[in-house]
């Protein structure tokens, strides 16, 4: 047994204007999960402590919260793996959400982004008489197994730095769930789905891999890349900056072997997009004043033909 101090975020939107913290000392084995520690505190010390929970075994996705700065499932987090040297476990609601009561947050923005996906099958054979089942080969199903493990706990959404500054971004979970239908051979709205998620700022993912902490190993970071590739292969929103940026990177590597920064800016923003280029100009001028501008014409690397051979040997889409 160990004396563990739970340092708990307290806030009730019905009565409080600002949050405060309560410290509750519990005498429990230090391997107790944070969720069980909270349950103990609620049962024995203060019945008003509020948090969501159901299954207690990483299946329902209810209990994601921030524990000593780390966001994840409280039921999957033993106290001794997170507590500091004083035996304190600091518990806060998930970031990127509006708190409702203690660790309970308003989940609406997260669910709204799911709802926009139409997260159910749109069968390719809508007029079917339903006499035959829709079969999927094991290989095709294999693609969907990882994403199907998503328990919608919103840990990835809470961790996403893009969501934290721009709530319009769909977020990792919704994009991974879009993938689940985009790559489902039974679905008939592949292109519409790619268009919808592209409009919800698919290309605003910052490649930061914060969502690689997914407690169910769904790895939304990899699925986001898959959806972008699908968007390019289906040629969705090809005039937007995201696809142009990706394709220009490949183009400059083919030309010079390098990522040519000057060409990349023009290729992404648009060579004839005067307003867009003017918006980039102030930073460009500040860099120029320090002698920090990338070269306008980049000399190709030695043996750049080899790079071209590689790119030509693989099926690479172009703008």
């Amino acid at each position, binding site marked *: 047994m160990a004396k563990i101090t739970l340092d708990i975020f307290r806030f009730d939107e019905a009565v409080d204007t600002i949050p405060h913290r309560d410290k509750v000392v519990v005498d429990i084995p230090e391997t107790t999960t944070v969720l069980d520690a909270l349950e103990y505190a609620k049962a024995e010390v203060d019945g008003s402590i509020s948090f969501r929970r159901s299954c207690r075994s990483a299946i329902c996705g209810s209990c994601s919260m921030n524990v000593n700065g*780390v966001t994840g499932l409280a039921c999957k987090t033993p106290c001794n793996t997170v507590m500091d040297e004083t035996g304190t476990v600091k518990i806060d609601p998930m970031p990127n959400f509006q708190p409702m009561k203690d660790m309970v947050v308003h989940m609406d923005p997260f669910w709204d982004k799911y709802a926009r996906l139409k997260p159910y099958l749109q069968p390719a054979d809508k007029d079917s008489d339903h006499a035959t089942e829709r079969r999927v080969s094991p290989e095709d199903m*294999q*693609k969907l*197994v*990882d994403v199907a*493990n998503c328990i919608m706990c919103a840990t990835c959404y809470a961790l996403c*730095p*893009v969501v*934290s*500054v*721009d709530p319009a*971004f769909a977020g990792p979970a919704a994009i991974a769930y879009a993938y689940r239908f985009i790559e489902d051979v039974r679905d008939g709205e592949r292109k519409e789905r790619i268009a919808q998620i592209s409009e919800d*700022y698919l*290309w*605003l*993912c*910052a*490649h*930061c*891999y*914060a969502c*690689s*902490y997914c407690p169910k*190993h769904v*790895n939304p*970071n990899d699925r986001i*890349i898959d959806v972008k*590739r699908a968007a390019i292969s289906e040629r969705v929103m090809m005039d937007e*900056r*995201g696809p142009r*940026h*990706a394709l220009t*990177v*490949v183009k400059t*590597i083919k030309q010079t*072997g*390098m*990522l040519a*920064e000057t060409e990349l800016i023009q290729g992404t*923003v648009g060579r004839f997009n005067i307003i867009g280029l003017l918006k*980039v100009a102030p*930073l460009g001028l*500040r*860099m120029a004043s*320090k*002698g*920090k501008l*990338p070269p306008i014409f*980049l000399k190709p*690397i030695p*043996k*750049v*033909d*080899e*790079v071209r051979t*590689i790119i030509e*040997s*693989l099926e*690479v*889409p172009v703008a």
Partner: protein
Amino acid sequence: MSATLLPEERPLDSHKRTRSSETKRYGFFPGCVAKESCKELFNSTMLLADKLGIELIELTAASCCGASVVNDVNRDVARVLNARTYAQAEALGLDDVITICSTCTGHMRAANKELLESEERMAQANSILGKFGAKYDGNIVVRHLLWLLIDDIGLDKLKSMVVRPLNGLKVAPFYGCHIIRPESVNGWESARNPHSLEDIIEAIGGEAVDYAGKTRCCGFHIQLEKDNVAANMVGQNMRMAQDHGAEAVLTPCPLCHLALDGYQQDAAARWGRTDLPTFHLPQLVAFALGVPAEKLGLNKHLIDPRTVLVDRDLIA
């Protein structure tokens, strides 16, 4: 793609002793940005290598690593491009490729992991490399200069080489996503609570500032997509750093450097002025080891870092 429910991924070996680390001759992959808009990073790396008595052999015919963007177009291109780079290092008798960019580190290690873990992918790469007479035998370890400093030089040795300790300059570490995440690819240290930069800062006489932003994203990769979002990501992190007392920032990544150095001004409207100067890792280490400040390209930064050095009586 694996179908296992809870795969416990084995991180790729990042501490392996290489022949290069014995001979102190390393393959060197500077990456695109250190050759284009952050030339001061390339120059200070070479000056630091001189001080450390190691030889960095630049892989001059190496291509871009894929920069995390090429995968958005095709999942094979970056892997085969990097296999070509590794084949060049092997042909020079080297087995260690040193990077100075977090994004290069993560993506070159990811490519190497894919090659080493799949005979099929290695065969695909070598069948293409064979068209121009190259072959990758799978002997390369990709490491960042940051890890080389700690594993091969050692913090004690580094400390003993310091001739100009930083007088307790308060430095905020900023890792850059791809040198720590995903942990299955990098694995050199904990991605959630890394401390290598802090160790370096302390070793050269600075005081490391702890703040939540140190492992967060600088927004570089979406600057051209939506510059205000990228600027806000910079502002959010630099606000945290300054609120924790930081006077300067240290990063092992030139992409983070471009973002932090370039966008604090644009983020000031929402996050308040921060104006924290950002040092490249080899710049600050080389400075502490006695390389003259004027050789380190500090005048190339948009937020001049010489001011804080003057404040701490480190330069006149």
